[in-house]
């Protein structure tokens, strides 16, 4: 089966002003995500998760290696026609209402008016923002804004979702909802590629996970197989992969 998302020897360097050499954020990364999977992308802060996603979306140009979506190089705009993306930190046009915002994105995808109306109604119901649909986004709470992000990521009914920490900033109920949405998308046959620090949620929703540390891929595989082969739960695996040694108990 052809991977829907693929990186080969991906390397990303950032120029830094401090006079030392460039900062390597991602080194020699090989990833393959197949259709219908829910893929968890794990790593500590600063591991290079967001950077990898930025390459996939064409925001950052890779220093080396290649990245493809649907078999198309990520630098081609057409590669982004069938994906939905939820950024890590985002503010949307604050002076628009959520309805206007979604209509704008729908137009960007060339959806017809009726189609857009239908999708917007459905999405607002899904993320539970119907009551606030006529309010400008600047009046929203943090969690509401995060849900706006989810709604806009789904506006084009994408086949591949790239979600950067979709549950951060949400209360337990909100996280639960996001998990449900991810599971529902999986049932619909979508592919989800998401990063997270919530190992419990990763364990419940993911088919496969990858753990990176300091830009390097440490481990990749099915959650169940990893747990079996390491004889430990995901959290313990994660901690050992990033080189954490527990303090000896005195």
């Amino acid at each position: 089966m052809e991977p829907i998302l693929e990186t080969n020897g991906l390397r990303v360097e950032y120029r830094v002003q401090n006079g030392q050499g460039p900062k390597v954020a991602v080194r020699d990364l090989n990833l393959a995500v197949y259709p219908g999977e829910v893929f968890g992308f794990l790593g500590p802060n600063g591991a290079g998760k967001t950077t990898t996603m930025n390459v996939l979306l064409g925001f950052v140009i890779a220093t080396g290696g290649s990245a493809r979506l649907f078999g198309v190089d990520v630098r081609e705009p057409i590669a982004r026609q069938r994906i939905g993306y939820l950024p890590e930190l985002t503010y949307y046009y604050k002076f628009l209402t959520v309805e206007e915002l979604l209509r704008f994105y729908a137009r960007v995808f060339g959806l017809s008016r009726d189609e857009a109306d239908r999708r917007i109604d459905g999405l607002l119901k899904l993320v539970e923002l119907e009551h606030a649909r006529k309010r400008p986004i600047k009046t929203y709470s943090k969690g509401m804004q995060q849900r706006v992000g989810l709604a806009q990521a789904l506006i084009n009914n994408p086949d591949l979702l790239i979600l950067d920490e979709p549950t951060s900033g949400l209360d337990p109920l909100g996280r639960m909802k996001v998990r449900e949405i991810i599971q529902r998308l999986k049932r619909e046959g979508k592919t989800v590629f998401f990063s997270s620090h919530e190992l419990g949620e990763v364990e419940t929703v993911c088919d496969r996970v990858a753990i990176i540390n300091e830009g390097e891929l440490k481990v990749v595989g099915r959650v169940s197989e990893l747990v079996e082969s390491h004889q430990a739960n995901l959290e313990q695996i994660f901690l050992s992969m990033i080189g954490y040694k527990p303090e000896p108990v005195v």
Partner: protein
Amino acid sequence: MNIVTALSGVVIKELYRRKDFYVLFILTALITLVMGSISFFNDARIARYLKEICLMLIWISALVIATTTTARQIPAERENRTIFPLLAKPVTRWHVVAGKFLGCWLASGMALVVFYFFFAVVSGTRDSHWPLLQYAQIVLLHWAMLAVVISLTLLGSVILSAPSSNMTICLVFVLGILLLGRHLNQVALEQPEPIRSLIYLVYYVIPHLEWYDVRDLIIYEHKLIAWSDCALAGLYAFVYSGFLLMGTWLAFRRKPLHL
């Protein structure tokens, strides 16, 4: 094209949801009405000074609206990170540049219509003279000029990161051209050689925005400008804006999005 118009729709919404436009319009209207209420030697037929003042205010307001709206577009997209979900869609940076330009241009065109409508009402009630074709010319020429101003500001906004400095530089540049552009060749001729060629070069390179300032023709009830000349001027503005937008795209194409 759909993407470009969608982007411009957001810009237009932004303009009329912000205070700037209303503040400037009310200011213009207020000053004009106050000046109009002064009785000069009990002669109610005196009108030209009022036209002069009103048009001056309209020109300043339009310039301020065009530059402030344009200068913050791309920097705000980056600062608020709205550029990320946008470019994650099948939107190229060229779309962003073109959409922002179109939005700002249409928005300032709408503002112009409102301003000039006010002007027409004020001057029409004064001297019951309604030269509608002439108004059409002044609005169109003004609008064509704003296309150059907007694309210039857009270029500035991807080169200079601070919108306020970009805005100031663009305003000074545009005002400079409006006031002095016409005379640079004369200035050049009075200079010794290396400087003369240099000034002449500048003279040919700068956009000649002063052409589009036909306020005097309205104020002093002059005859219409030939429509062919208007079309040529429009073409010049179009080509010039095209070059500036191309430059904007070239500068923006490889620019890192993170601040």
